[in-house]
C-alpha cells in the first residue's frame, strides 16, 4: 500500500479468491516527494548533540485506509452486478421492519442478502433470516459504526449472489456511520415521523452523505404534529439533491415506489456488470488475434 496517500488494496484483495484479471494499478504515480535527509532537520544540518527534529509533509487523509478498502468493496460488488445499499438511521426508525417487508415483497424475484450491524445480539439477522433471505450479523462490540473492513469480512462469509441486491443495515446511529464509506452504491437515511422533523438539521452530516431519505411510519401522521414539508425542506438545506420517499413499512403505503427504486438500482448495477464483461470479452477476442 502507498503509505502517503493510503491508496492500494493489497491487504484485502488477496484474502479472497477471485477469477478476474483487472490490472491492480491505479491512476496516479507515486512521487510524493517525501525523501527524508538528515540535513533537513530544523537546524538545517546534522550537528552532533543537537536535536534531529525534522518536519515531514505527509498530506494523508485520515479516512484514506477505510476509503481504499471501500473502493475494493465497490469493485468487488461491481464485478458481480450486486446493488448494495447502506441503510443508516437512529435506533428505532424501523430499518429492520422496512427490510423484512422488502425481502418479503421481493422474495422469488431475485436473490437478496442482508448484512446487519449492531453492537450486540443477532436479533435483527434472526428476523431477516425468518423471512427467508440469507443474513449475517456483524456485532461491533463497543464500535458505533460499520467500516469497510467489517463489511468485506461479511462479503466472504455471506457470499451474496451475482446480480442480487445487498442491504447493509448500519448500526443505529445518526452520527458516526456518516464518515465511513462501505463501498455501497448509496446511503439511504431512514427517518421515522415519530422523530423530530428537524433531525436533518440536527444531524446534517448524515443527511448530506445520504442520497435518499425514507420517511418511515407515515401511517402515524394523523396522530402526530410532524410537518412533512418542513422536514423535507430541512433535508434539502443540507443536501439539495436528496431524494425523498414517504413510506409505511407496516401499512405498505409508499412501498411500491421504494421497491421500484431498488429494482432500478439493481438493473443499473447489472447493466454496469454487462459493460465490464463485454469489455473483458472484447479484450479476450483481441488477444486471440
Amino acid at each position: 500500500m502507498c503509505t502517503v496517500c493510503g491508496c492500494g488494496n493489497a491487504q484485502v484483495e488477496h484474502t479472497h479468491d477471485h477469477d478476474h484479471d483487472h490490472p491492480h494499478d491505479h491512476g496516479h504515480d507515486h512521487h510524493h516527494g517525501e525523501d527524508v535527509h538528515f540535513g533537513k532537520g530544523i537546524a538545517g544540518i546534522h550537528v552532533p548533540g543537537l536535536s534531529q527534529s525534522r518536519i515531514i509533509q505527509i498530506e494523508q487523509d485520515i479516512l484514506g485506509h477505510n476509503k481504499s478498502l471501500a473502493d475494493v468493496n465497490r469493485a468487488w460488488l461491481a464485478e458481480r452486478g450486486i446493488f448494495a445499499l447502506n441503510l443508516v438511521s437512529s435506533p428505532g426508525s424501523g430499518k429492520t421492519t422496512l427490510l423484512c417487508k422488502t425481502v418479503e415483497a421481493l422474495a422469488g424475484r431475485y436473490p437478496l442478502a442482508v448484512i446487519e450491524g449492531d453492537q450486540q445480539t443477532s436479533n435483527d439477522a434472526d428476523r431477516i433470516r425468518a423471512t427467508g433471505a440469507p443474513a449475517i450479523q456483524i456485532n461491533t462490540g463497543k464500535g458505533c459504526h460499520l467500516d469497510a473492513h467489517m463489511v468485506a469480512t461479511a462479503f466472504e462469509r455471506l457470499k451474496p449472489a451475482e446480480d442480487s441486491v445487498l442491504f447493509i443495515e448500519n448500526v443505529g446511529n445518526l452520527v458516526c456511520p456518516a464518515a465511513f464509506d462501505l463501498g455501497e452504491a448509496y446511503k439511504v437515511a431512514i427517518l421515522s415521523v415519530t422523530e423530530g422533523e428537524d433531525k436533518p438539521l440536527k444531524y446534517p452530516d448524515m443527511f448530506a452523505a445520504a442520497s435518499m431519505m425514507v420517511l418511515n411510519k407515515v401511517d402515524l401522521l394523523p396522530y402526530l404534529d410532524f410537518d412533512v414539508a418542513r422536514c423535507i425542506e430541512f433535508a434539502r438545506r443540507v443536501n439539495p439533491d436528496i431524494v425523498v420517499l414517504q413510506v409505511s413499512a407496516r401499512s405498505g403505503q409508499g412501498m411500491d415506489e421504494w421497491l421500484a427504486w431498488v429494482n432500478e438500482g439493481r438493473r443499473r448495477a447489472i447493466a454496469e456488470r454487462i459493460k465490464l464483461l463485454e469489455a473483458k470479452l472484447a479484450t479476450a477476442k483481441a488477444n486471440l488475434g
Partner: protein
Amino acid sequence: MHEMSLTEGVVRILEEQAATHGFAKVKTVWLEIGELSQVDPESMLFCFDAIARGSNVAAEAKLEIVTIPGQAYCLDCADTVPLSKRGDGCPKCGGWALQVTGGGDMRIKELEVE
C-alpha cells in the same frame, strides 16, 4: 464516538510513516480538520491522548489541530461563499443551493519527528 476509530487511524499512519522514513518518535502531528468534516476536534484530542500512549512512536506526540474553514459554491449567486456549518444558508442570498467545496476533509498535514 467515531473519533476513537479515526484516532486509531492517525496512530496507524504514524507507525507506517515511522517504518517508511526510519524515525523513532513523533514530536508533533499537525491535523487539518475541515469545519464541515464529521469530526469533533475536542474528542479527537481526548482520544489521541488515550490511544497514543499505547504506541512507541506516538506516545510523546503532541496533536495540533488546524481548522480549515468550510466553503461552498452557491448555485444561485454563482459564487464561492464561506459556510461554517451544514444547514446554514448562503451568507449572500440566504438560499440553500449550496455545494460544499472546502472544509469537508480531515487529514494529517505534516509531522515533526526525530
